[in-house]
């Protein structure tokens, strides 16, 4: 598809045909768009040195450089367009992939990422981040002196005004993640990490979850991205955050199952 893009009645999402990475999000209902790039980066954790023996750990992020390294500068992609869903599959590496989805009627872009097992190499340890760079938004004022602070449900980036209306890019997470806005217009969320050295803070073992097969954990999760005016954003992201936290539970039954007509709250009690 020469024009790598997915859309529904609310959003059109464009991708760079050369790199396969996210390039722009357009709000079709309101007629504005925002250049947005997104990818997966990693930081080299600190193993401690003569100046400062403190190694990275669960309490202290302390990467040995504040510049994240891209897992890959481009992704191999596969586009799927059907009446029920339009999605772009991105593969960054053997242990980092993502699917971006738009479904009819949903005013948000879903990013389902799968990261791991992170290959640990002697001495090097990695922390993974999914990061979003949106226009020239203002850097978030992090309340933790380290700039990386827990994001328990959502993060927002305020973007340059459009027709005097402030735009807002909102990212909803399906679990608490370390995150920060280190550079103006960027938002970083830590989706996975693997450390091979203890941080000497009492646990006396590195934060290195080998998983049941010893190769390291594979983590899969979702981020929902909304782009709207700042005035309209709360109405969108608050109910959505509730649905992410208290999502419906699915139960299956063989055959015709129970005669559960649509039983609603009042009928239930």
């Amino acid at each position, binding site marked *: 598809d020469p024009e790598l893009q997915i859309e529904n009645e609310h959003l059109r999402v464009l991708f760079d045909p050369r790199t396969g990475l996210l390039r722009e999000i357009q709000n079709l209902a309101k007629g504005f768009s925002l250049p947005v790039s997104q990818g997966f980066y990693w930081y080299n954790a600190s193993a401690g040195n003569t100046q400062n023996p403190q190694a990275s750990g669960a309490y202290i992020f302390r990467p040995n450089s504040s510049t994240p390294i891209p897992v890959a500068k481009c992704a191999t992609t596969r586009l799927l367009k059907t009446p*029920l869903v339009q999605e772009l599959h991105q593969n960054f590496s053997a242990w980092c992939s993502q699917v971006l989805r738009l479904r009819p009627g949903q005013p948000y872009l879903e990013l389902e990422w799968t990261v791991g097992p992170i290959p640990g190499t002697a001495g090097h340890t990695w922390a993974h981040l999914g990061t979003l760079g949106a226009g020239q938004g203002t850097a978030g004022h992090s309340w933790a002196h380290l700039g990386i602070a827990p994001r328990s449900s959502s993060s927002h980036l305020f973007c340059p005004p459009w027709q005097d209306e402030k735009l807002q890019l909102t990212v909803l997470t399906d679990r608490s993640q370390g995150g920060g806005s280190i550079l103006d217009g960027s938002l970083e969320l830590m989706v996975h990490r693997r450390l091979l050295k203890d941080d000497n803070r009492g646990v006396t073992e590195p934060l290195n979850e080998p998983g049941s097969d010893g190769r390291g954990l594979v983590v899969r999760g979702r981020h929902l991205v909304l782009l709207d005016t700042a005035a309209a954003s709360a109405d969108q992201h608050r109910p959505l955050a509730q649905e992410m936290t208290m999502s419906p539970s699915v139960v299956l039954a063989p055959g015709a199952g129970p005669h*559960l007509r649509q039983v609603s709250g009042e009928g239930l009690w």
Partner: protein
Amino acid sequence: TGDSSVLRKAVAVAQHHDAVSGTERQHVANDYARQLAKGWDCCQVLVANALSLLGGTKCPFVFCNALNISMCPLSETADHFTVILYNPLARRVAWPVRLPVRGSSYAVTDPEGQPVASQVSLDPTNPPNPPHPPLALGAPGELLFQAWAPPLGFSAFGVKQLSPADPWEPPERPSG
């Protein structure tokens, strides 16, 4: 008998800052996970009892805990099953359902028996006869449809396979 206090106790124990932030030793993290998993199992019995009571039936209910890696023995092997959605919010929600299946087309009906648009998207990373065992040993396709559920309530969707069953048997599952 179902019992939600097991999960309540497990969540109470997991309020410790170690459980919240992951600063504990590995064997302690494993134990938090074990307690939560045990609590989850007891709650599934509770939900199954409630569904039996509401539906006036004793049919077995299946909870697929690995749907996020497209694994669900029932939907991968049965040609007729029911999907029940429980909505814990106090307002109606729409919810996209994705289930690993072996067939290539299905008829889905809503709680009123009306047809619901559905499709099977074949996952090329899980071809019917994989050249190499993929990461998640799932079925070759995923059945997609848009479901919904009333406030604080359930809704049940019927699923029937239309295409002849492709010759595909779920491979041996990795344990755990």
